[in-house]
């Protein structure tokens, strides 16, 4: 994974990197370089300790009110479970590939579906691999996007991850990777019909008790929509996709164009 590294030139970035002084545009490249550069990871570890001391040297006592506020807020936030040891992005990717091979091998009459599923899986597998890095040595920087990536990796990397595909009635295919253990799924779709700007696709968890909004589906690149991570799955849920006003709706206003039974 040493490609495109530029050797020494990349290596010197480690100081800027641990001080968050590498612009987003360069960061992905450097992180890729670090994957294949043991020395860089070791350097980053030590320099991060030094940088932390700069933070400590800047210490300023917060206003006392902030303490109770923060402690109270924490009580309302659910904590993430630990990452199971040995569960790396590589493992996740491997498991995902196996799952997909199972799904794809008997494809026979619908090879295009197999190709589509494989393309989806490659995207997810890449995400999972990249994530292995985040989950282990670089778990520290958590932007919203990275948090979503972590959630995706947790699902596709779960031992019980299963993949389902379904045809969307208005065109396109939906793929769901679900982990019952994580009570979460990742949804992606390909080739969905384009919508006017006033409308958008919205996901729902539909249960006998009624529908719960599960997120808006953002149009992605290359005809791909999503991924969307949907958590808090409950027994009996079905995943539905509807066309709604662009801002989203509190309840579905149209019939689902795809409905995936999650209990099977």
């Amino acid at each position, binding site marked *: 994974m040493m490609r495109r590294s530029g050797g020494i030139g990349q290596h010197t970035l480690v100081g800027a990197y641990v001080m968050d002084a590498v612009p987003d545009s360069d960061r992905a490249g450097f992180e890729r370089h670090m994957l294949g550069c043991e020395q860089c990871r070791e350097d980053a570890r030590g320099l*991060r300790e*030094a940088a*932390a001391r*700069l933070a400590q040297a800047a210490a300023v006592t*917060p206003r006392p009110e902030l303490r109770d506020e923060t402690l109270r807020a924490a009580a309302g936030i659910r904590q993430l479970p630990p990452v199971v040891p040995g569960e790396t992005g590589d493992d996740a990717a491997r498991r995902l590939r196996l799952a997909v091979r199972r799904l794809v091998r008997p494809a026979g009459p619908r090879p295009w579906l197999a190709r589509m599923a494989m393309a989806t899986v490659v995207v997810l597998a890449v995400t999972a691999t990249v994530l292995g890095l985040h989950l282990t040595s670089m778990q*520290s920087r958590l932007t919203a996007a990275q948090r979503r990536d972590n959630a995706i990796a947790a699902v596709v990397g779960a031992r019980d991850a299963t993949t389902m595909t379904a045809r969307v009635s208005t065109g396109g295919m939906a793929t769901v990777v679900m982990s019952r253990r994580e009570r979460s799924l990742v949804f992606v779709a390909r080739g969905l019909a384009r919508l006017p700007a006033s409308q958008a696709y919205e996901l729902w968890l539909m249960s006998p008790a009624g529908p719960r909004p599960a997120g808006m589906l953002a149009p992605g690149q290359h005809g791909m929509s999503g991924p969307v991570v949907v958590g808090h799955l409950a027994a009996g849920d079905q995943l539905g996709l509807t066309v709604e006003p662009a801002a989203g709706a509190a309840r579905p206003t149209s019939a689902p164009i795809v409905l995936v039974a999650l209990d099977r």
Partner: protein
Amino acid sequence: MQVRIWSVDVHGDPADRVRQLPPARSGGPDGLETVLAAVARGDHAAFRALYDRVSPAVLGTALRVVRDPAQSEEVMQEVLLEVWRTAARFDPAAGSASAWIMTVAHRRAVDRVRSEQRASERELRAAKASIAYDEVTDAVETSLEQQRVRRCLAGLTELQRESVALAYYGGYSYREVAQLLGVAVGTVKTRMRDGLIRLRDCLGVE
């Protein structure tokens, strides 16, 4: 150019602003690692202890980078809550608990500044004019930790020190630092790395 590293211009009484931090490095019974492990199990008392230990450094870092006190306090609270939420994901093999938390803190502060910057194109020159090196104008009580870091920073070359301070305390990217200091981008990258290495060795970080 001039970079003020040690004066703290914030709200409140100067004497209240700075407190000494315990050396937060060991994994022993009082170590931050132990506290963090208890936090990961949902222990609210441990989280209170963690807050007391790390919130000053988190807030101080945010203030250096973000400058605005209200926003810095928000950043501090967000960081502490992020630590609460993700404590179980801390991996001791990847570094100390303190480094993990301060990395989250610094990143969050920098993200805040960069998103602001995109919104209202920060004027580099204004920032450059407003910081002046080592003018301890306010009567700031410095902690032992501050003195130690300050002594070590003094051992860097001027360019190393300025590069590190502008990146870490200023929240500037290496390209911006290069522009501010009027030196080549490659030079700044090297100075940042070498400066931090010297700092690491001087502080005896393992």
